[in-house]
C-alpha cells in the first residue's frame, strides 16, 4: 500500500520534461497557479479567508478567547496557530493523530506569522495580569492538490487581517478590528527533475525531492525558512529561489491588501 511504484515512472517523466525546461502542466519554472482569495466567508469565525490555488483549496478561521496572561508577561495576550489536514483533503491523508507532515506544516506556517511580529501581543491585553485576548487561527485543508504550505500561509494572514475582536460578546468593550501591522508571505520551492520550481501540484510533489519554504516580510526581511524532505542543495540554488521569492512575495502581498480592502 505504502510503497507506490508510480512515483518512479513519474519521477522519470518529470525529469525528462525538466531537461527541456518544461513542467507537466505547461507552467514556467517560477509560474504559480491561479490564486483566488476570498475573505469573510465563515459566518461563525471572527475573521476568515478561503484560498484556492489550482485545485488546492483551504480555509482559515480566526476565533478569540479570553486568557489569563502568563505571570512573566502580564501585559500580553497570545497567538495560537493550529493546522489540521483531515482526510477530507485527499486520498493520502489518513485519520488518526497528527502525522509528522501535518505537524511540520502547522509549525512552519505558525513561525512565518509569529516571527514577523505582525501581531503585537501587548495590543491584546485587556486588564494587565488578569485578562487578555488569545487569538486562535485554525487552518483547514479542503482539497490538497499540492503546496498546502503557501495556501495556508496566504489564508492565515488574510484571515487575521479580516478579523474583528468580539469584545462585546465577552463584555470587554467595543468590537474593534485586530491590528495586523505586517504582511508575511510564504513562497515554497520544490526540487523536481533536478531543479527547483515554484508552487508544485500534487504530481510534482510525488515525483520531486526536497522543498524549501521561505517566509518574507516587509522590506524583504526573512522571517522563516524550512528545508523539508531528503535532498541536497547548493548555496547557488538557494540564492536563486530566494531572489525569486522576493518578487513573488511582493505580488502576493498586493493581492492580500486588495482582498482585505487596504
Amino acid at each position, binding site marked *: 500500500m505504502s510503497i507506490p511504484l508510480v512515483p518512479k515512472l513519474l519521477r522519470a517523466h518529470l525529469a525528462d520534461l525538466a531537461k527541456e525546461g518544461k513542467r507537466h502542466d505547461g507552467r514556467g519554472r517560477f509560474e504559480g497557479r491561479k490564486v483566488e482569495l476570498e475573505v469573510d466567508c465563515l459566518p461563525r469565525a471572527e475573521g476568515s479567508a478561503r484560498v484556492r490555488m489550482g485545485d488546492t483549496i483551504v480555509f482559515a478561521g480566526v*476565533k478569540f478567547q479570553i486568557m489569563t496572561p502568563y505571570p512573566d508577561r502580564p501585559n500580553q495576550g497570545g497567538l495560537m496557530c493550529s493546522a489540521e489536514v483531515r482526510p*477530507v483533503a485527499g486520498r493520502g491523508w489518513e485519520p488518526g493523530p497528527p502525522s509528522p507532515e501535518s505537524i511540520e506544516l502547522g509549525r512552519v506556517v505558525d513561525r512565518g506569522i509569529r516571527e514577523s511580529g505582525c501581531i503585537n501581543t501587548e495590543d491584546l491585553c485587556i486588564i494587565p495580569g488578569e485578562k487578555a485576548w488569545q487569538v486562535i487561527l*485554525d487552518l*483547514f485543508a479542503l482539497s490538497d492538490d499540492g503546496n498546502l504550505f503557501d495556501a495556508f500561509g496566504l489564508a492565515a494572514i488574510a484571515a487575521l487581517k479580516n478579523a474583528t475582536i468580539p469584545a462585546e460578546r465577552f463584555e470587554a468593550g467595543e468590537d474593534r478590528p485586530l491590528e495586523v501591522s505586517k504582511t508575511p508571505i510564504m513562497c515554497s520551492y520544490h526540487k523536481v527533475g533536478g531543479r527547483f520550481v515554484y508552487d508544485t501540484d500534487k504530481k510534482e510533489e510525488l515525483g520531486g525531492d526536497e522543498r524549501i519554504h521561505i517566509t518574507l516580510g516587509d522590506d524583504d526581511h526573512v522571517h522563516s525558512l524550512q528545508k523539508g524532505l531528503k535532498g541536497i542543495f547548493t548555496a547557488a540554488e538557494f540564492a536563486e529561489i530566494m531572489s525569486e521569492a522576493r518578487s513573488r512575495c511582493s505580488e502576493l502581498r498586493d493581492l492580500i491588501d486588495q482582498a482585505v480592502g487596504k
Partner: protein
Amino acid sequence: MGGYGDVQCIDENGIRLDGRKIDEVRPMSIEVGVVPVADGSARMKWGLNDVIAAVYGPMEAHPRKIQRQDRAVLDVRYNMAPFSTTDRIRPGFNRRSREISKVTAEALESVVLTELYPRSKIRVEIEIICAEAGTRCAGITAASVALAHAGIPMTDLVVSVASGKVHDVVVCDLNKEEDNYGEADLPMGILPNTGELVFLQMDGDLSPQQFQEAWDYNMGAAKVIHEVMVEALKGGDE
C-alpha cells in the same frame, strides 16, 4: 408555553422568528464537485449550516481486519471544524462525533449497494464548516449527494431532516434558537421514493400526538429537500 425566559419563538399568527411557517424548511442550496481531488463531493448550505461531504473510493480496505468478504465497508467521519461554532471547538474526535459518524455510516450502508465491491472501502468525509442546528441531518443529506456524484450505486438517496418542539409547539426543521430553547428534536433519515427510514434518533419530551406531528413534518419536508438534491445532481459540474 415553556418557561424559557422571554424568548417567544412563534408569534400569534404561527410565524417563527426567522419568518417561516410552522411546517416550512429553511432556505437551502446544494452544489457538487466542491472538493476537486475527491471522487465525489457536495456542499450543502441550509440556513447558516455550511456542510461539505467528500467521497473517496471504492478503494482497497486496509488494515485487512476491517475488510468484509462480501461487501464494501463505509468509513464515515463526521467532524466540526474548530471555527464552525460561536465557541471554538478543540480539534480531535469526541464521543458525540463518533456516535454521529456511526449512525450516519449505518444509514448510508442501508442504501449503498456495498455487495458490488467486496473487500473494499468507501471513505465518506463530512466536514461542518459552519454550524447552525441540524448539522447531522445536513451531513447525511450532503453525503448521499456526494455518493451519487461519485457514481456509487445506491437504491435511493437519503434525505435527512429534524423537526422538534419549541414551547410546546411542534415545528419543522429547527433553527438555532429553536434548538437551544426547544424541548425535543426528532432527526430522521428518509428514502424519498418509498417513505421508508434508515436513520432515526430523538431526544427530549414528546407526547404521542406531538411525536406523530413531528414525524409528519419530517415526511413532508423530505419531499422539498429531495428536489433540491436532484436538481444539484442534474446541474453537476462533471
